[in-house]
């Protein structure tokens, strides 16, 4: 059974990584084979926290997608972005800085793809107004989105997977990842000034055009905006009060989504269109593929191999995870990678593991996987979405143009994570 599980997992993983077939088809196809040949039974697949579908992740994603689906209809993102561009006086570098900071903060609370989908059209509008090439702005926003998303439990799908597997709370993420992400963002802004230095020349006459934009027109429904922001604030508060309330993030997200649906009065079609069913199905298939490795003992072997390679040394294990994850995430989707590695790390830091209680390994895995995705145009979903938007708007971004900037940012941010992990956790 172990060999069968490895073969099916490897084939599915290669298909997902090579993008030769749709990733949902590959994940669900592999999961189907795993179930059909009896590696996993129905109890293993649907009811086991170790080997089955992680419903916490699925429903947390679902709940947040519904909340975003309602929130985006208020026009609040457009309002904030245009307000920021006006506050920057239309000066290109200031505009880029503020748009990147908005993107990073929004990505910490929402998923990265949604954030760049919302910010990119506004960016194109502002860049057209001030007469600058939008490409550097779009690239910088994708990079900022991946950095910002690293900061919280709900910011990036790998974080959700780790949170569910490890039991780490929303506050754990805030305390351990948010501070270093803040430092990275400050460095990133300075780095952007250097990387895109040739792209900040605007026509002074055109700069005034930005000031003519009326951000108040973006707000479609003031009442819905207020109600949505109140619910979002309550959801974020409930995340942070996990220890007091005892509610799992998935339950909080579902309660928030349900409340928002009830009080918004919107038709289901309007917010259900934002549910990424493909992503949810992909996760379900992926969890079963990884579950087959857990059940057949492959994960135990991987954990032992990792310990042997690092000589039971926490600093070495953290560096291996950090840089290994960053390298792999630059070329393949970080979601399947983290889904596979999460049970491995769980073996190491769990109650009986050789590095029991050393949560630094979780942060090393996430910092590597989340930040490594910045290195190439295909390293993270936000990058792919931004290059697609740029192409449709007549400003194509080549793979190498993105990678030229992204690889520098990935290298610098992972380098910043290195002393942070070593000093704080070893």
């Amino acid at each position, binding site marked *: 059974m172990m060999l069968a599980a490895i073969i099916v997992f490897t084939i599915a993983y290669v298909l997902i990584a090579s993008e030769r077939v749709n990733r949902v088809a590959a994940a669900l196809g592999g999961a189907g084979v795993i179930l059909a040949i009896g590696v996993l039974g129905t109890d293993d697949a649907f009811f086991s926290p170790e080997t089955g579908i992680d419903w916490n992740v699925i429903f947390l994603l679902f709940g947040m997608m519904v909340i975003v689906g309602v929130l985006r209809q208020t*026009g609040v993102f*457009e309002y904030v972005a*245009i307000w920021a561009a006006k506050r920057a006086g239309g000066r290109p570098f200031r505009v880029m800085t503020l748009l990147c900071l908005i993107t990073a903060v929004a990505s910490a609370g929402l998923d990265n793809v949604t954030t760049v*989908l*919302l910010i*990119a*059209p*506004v960016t*194109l*509008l502002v860049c*057209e107004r001030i007469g600058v090439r939008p490409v550097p702005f779009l690239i910088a926003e994708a990079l900022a989105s991946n950095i910002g998303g690293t900061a919280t439990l709900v910011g990036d799908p790998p974080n959700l997977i780790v949170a569910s597997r490890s039991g780490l709370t929303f506050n754990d993420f805030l305390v351990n990842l948010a501070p270093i992400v803040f430092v990275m963002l400050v460095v990133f802004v300075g780095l952007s000034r250097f990387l895109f230095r040739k792209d900040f020349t605007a026509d002074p006459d055109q700069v005034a055009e930005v000031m*003519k*934009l*009326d*951000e108040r*027109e*973006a707000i*479609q429904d003031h009442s819905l905006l207020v109600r949505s922001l109140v619910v979002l604030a309550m959801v974020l508060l409930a995340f942070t009060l996990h220890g007091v309330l005892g509610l799992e993030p998935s339950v909080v997200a579902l309660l928030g989504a349900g409340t928002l649906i009830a009080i918004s009065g919107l038709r289901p079609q309007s917010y259900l269109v934002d549910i990424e069913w493909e992503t949810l199905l992909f996760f379900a298939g992926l969890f079963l593929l990884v579950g087959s490795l857990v059940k057949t003992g492959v994960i135990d072997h991987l954990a032992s191999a990792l310990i042997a390679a690092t000589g039971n040394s926490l600093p070495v294990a953290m560096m291996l995870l950090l840089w290994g994850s960053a390298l792999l995430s630059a070329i393949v989707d970080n979601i399947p990678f983290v889904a596979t590695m999460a049970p491995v790390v769980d073996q190491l830091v769990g109650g009986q593991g050789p590095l029991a209680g050393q949560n630094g390994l979780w942060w090393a895995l996430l910092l590597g996987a989340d930040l490594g995705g910045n290195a190439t145009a295909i390293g993270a979903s936000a990058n792919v979405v931004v290059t697609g*938007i740029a192409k*449709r*708007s*007549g400003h194509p971004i080549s793979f190498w143009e993105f990678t030229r900037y992204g690889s520098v940012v990935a290298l610098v941010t992972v380098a910043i994570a290195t002393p942070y992990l070593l000093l704080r956790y070893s």
Partner: protein
Amino acid sequence: MLAGEIAEPYPVVGVDTSALVAARLLASQRLPGLVVTDLDGSPKAVLPASEVVRFLVPDYVQADPTLAGVIGEDAADRIASRLGRATVGELLPLRAVEVPVLKAEDTVLELAAVMARLRSPLCAVVDDGTIVGVVTASHLLELMCGDPVP
């Protein structure tokens, strides 16, 4: 009744015609679309008026309609100037689509079938490779459903 018998003279533009000229032609005669010919004069595509309107709207507004209100009225002139820099060929879809063309001896029902399948507001009628006229959807409806209500 055959397509050749009901085809009417209709403005035709080439792929190299200015998009602004095409837009003014559509506007002045309130046409639902134009037949576009290739450089050799053969039918290449039907350009619905809605596609020209679509070209006028910046991509970022199509992606996020909320931004239409933010931009304001004074930007309309600048947006319209995009047409002056483009040709009709640039307004056509990048991917080749089937052209609604029928022969003069084809029937009215065949005309209706082609328009319905391609969701086209008009259909070119050719004889020996030359466009002899065009049948619009409204003309076809008039023929199929009887005279207009007085």
